[in-house]
Every structure is written in structure tokens, then in C-alpha cells.
């Protein structure tokens, strides 16, 4: 997956995923929520999430809920790491404004 030195191949879809996390840097998102916010299909989204996690930009953990009481399975939640936040900001700053608009 991603490289341990933190370099990630930047595609438009990767930028769109990063934008979702940058808008709320402290929030945790499940893959389903990221899909709802940026509309990227699952076939593209999950490799990107794993790539960014493997590169150290994201960290993930299971949702701490009781599935039987909520009636749904627990989700895997992703969050930007501080290194990921810094690198993602650098990436966006290097682009011209409005690239993603």
C-alpha cells in the first residue's frame, strides 16, 4: 500500500478524500461517511484510505459501541494524524486555489 516515508501518489480522488478530513481535522469518519461527503465509489475509496493509513497520514480504530444495543455493526473510523494534517495542508497549499471546485 502506501510508502512508509509518507509519500502518497496524489490523484484527484485522493485530494477529495483529504479535503473531507481537512474540513474537520479532529473528526473521525467511517468509509461510508467519506463516501457520502465526496461521492467516491467504494472501489476507489478504500484503497485510498488504506494507502493514506499505511503512509501514516491517517490512523484508524474501531468505533467503541455495543453493536447489540445499537443494532448495527461497529464501524472503522479514520482520522488525520498530525503528520497527515501537515502534509495534506502542504499539498493543498501547493495547488492553485479552486482546483477542487
Amino acid at each position, binding site marked *: 500500500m502506501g510508502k512508509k516515508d509518507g509519500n502518497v501518489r496524489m490523484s484527484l480522488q485522493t485530494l477529495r478524500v483529504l479535503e473531507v478530513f481537512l474540513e474537520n481535522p479532529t473528526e473521525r469518519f467511517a*468509509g*461510508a461517511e467519506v463516501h457520502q461527503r465526496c461521492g467516491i465509489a*467504494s*472501489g476507489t*475509496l478504500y484503497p485510498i484510505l*488504506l494507502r493514506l493509513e499505511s503512509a501514516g497520514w491517517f490512523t484508524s480504530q474501531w468505533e467503541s459501541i455495543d453493536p447489540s444495543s445499537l443494532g448495527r455493526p461497529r464501524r472503522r473510523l479514520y482520522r488525520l494524524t498530525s503528520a497527515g494534517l501537515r502534509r495534506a495542508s502542504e499539498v*493543498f497549499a501547493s495547488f492553485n486555489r479552486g482546483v477542487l471546485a
Partner: protein
Amino acid sequence: MSQRNERLRQSDVIHWLIHHAAHRAPESLSSRLEEEWLADVESRSSAWSRLRFALGCCWATMVIVSEYPRSRVPAASSAAAARGFITLADRNFGYFSLRSGTLFLIAGLHAVLFYVLITTLSHTHGLATPPNLQNYPVNPVAPEKVPPPPAMEMKGWTIDVQKLVVDVPPKIDVEDDAPRQVVEKSPEPYSPSLPPETPIHVVQQVGGGPGAGFPETADFYPSLSIHLGEEGISTVRVCVDAKGRLTSEPTTVKGSGNARLDEGALKLARAGSGHYRATTEDGQPVNSCYAFGVRFQLKK
């Protein structure tokens, strides 16, 4: 009952697809991906959306397998031996990487489609040839004279069609920081239709704008724009009633060049509904539309 059975059958297919996709992934990720995908598929409402999600997971697995370091996927390598395409992708035999294989597949499909198209066209070539057409001058047909409609009379009743008079409010464009100005309508030139004794009324008009209690621009500065140091002025057009409330959705007249800032300006304009100062004519607030600028500027 049959609908429920149908739903259960669809759910089984989707779960099977996800299970199948997850088990083709590297062993260290397999159980995690299956649980994650089964949880995420629950958020999809329609059966079609769930099916697309499950098929997407199959594709995701192929991408993950091709990208995952070989040192970290010992199980994947042995399991992949039985799966022709993935095996070729993993071993990266020159032209037979996953990506180039997909490219060849797409190119092959295009070639087949092109061949079918060409052969079909060659069969229908004779039929598609247009017949010889000649142009003939056509005598122009005189327009039919339509007699004027008779006065509408029904059993002794006569309907008079009255003239429709529409009052159109004046269009005013006001900048946010521009001083409010009094606009006086210049007297219109002499019109013979007006009776000479009609007095010329000068309307004193004061343009509207954001008024007391209008939200702060800083509250609508997009957080990402602050983070990236984005600044700009977005000009928004609003239509407000006499009480300073929006009568229609605000629109961007002149963008700042940044979609995030423009969206922030629109949110500000929406939030300000009820806090606009209405345009007044002779001191009376009236409905009007005007534009104002929203400046997003970071403090130095």
C-alpha cells in the same frame, strides 16, 4: 412475504460478494476489511447502492492486492496462484501488471466495438445513401387574413378586457461599504399621452444593505480557507422584502475566484435574513434586490 424473501436473497448476495472480496485481500487485512465493509454497507439505503458497494469492494481488493507489499502478504501470494489474473498482476510480468492488463482489456473492447460498428455500417451503406434531392422554388403563400375577434358577447353580457398594469420595483445595486445614496428620478421627457397637468413626482430612494444584527463575516470564514490563507471578495445579490427578510435564494454576482469563499458568502447572506435594511422610497420600506460585497480577509 415474497418481498421479504427477495430482500433476504439480495442481502445474501451482497454479503457473499463482500465476504468473497475481503478473503481475496491480504490475510492481515482480510477480517478487518470484511467487518468494515459489512458495517459500511449497512448505511446504504437502496439495494442497487448496496450491490454497487459490494462490487466496488471486489475492485478495491484487486487494487489493494496489487499495491500491498509482497513481504506483508505471504498468504495472498500463495492464494493468488490459483487466480490467473491476480497472479499475473502480483508477479508483475512486464506487460502483465494489473494496470496494463486492464488497459489491454479496455483497448480490446474498443477494438471489438469498432469492428462491429464498421461491419454494420458497411452493410447498411446502400440503405443510408440519401436519394437525389432537387430544390424547387416554392411560391410564397400569402398570410391568411384573420378577422379581428368580435366583441365577446354572451346572452347580453359584454366582457371588457382591462389593461393590465404591472408595478415593477426598481433594481438597485448597492455595495456593502459604499455610502448610502439618495437616488432621484430625473423627470421623464414630455409625453403627449400624459395630461399636461400631471405633477412630476420625485421619488426619494435610499438603497438597502446589511443592517443591525447582521452576522459577522468572520463567523462564516471557511475553516479550510483560514487554514490555507485564502482571501477575497465575493459579491452577492439578495432580494429582500420591506422587513429585511430574504425573498429568494441569494446568488453570487461576482465570485472571489475561490468556490469555498463564495459558498461562505452565500451562507452569510442566508444567515442575515431578517437583518437586512430594506430599500426605502419616500421613507417607506419596499421590496428590492441589490448586491453587496463580502470581504474575507485574514488579520495580519
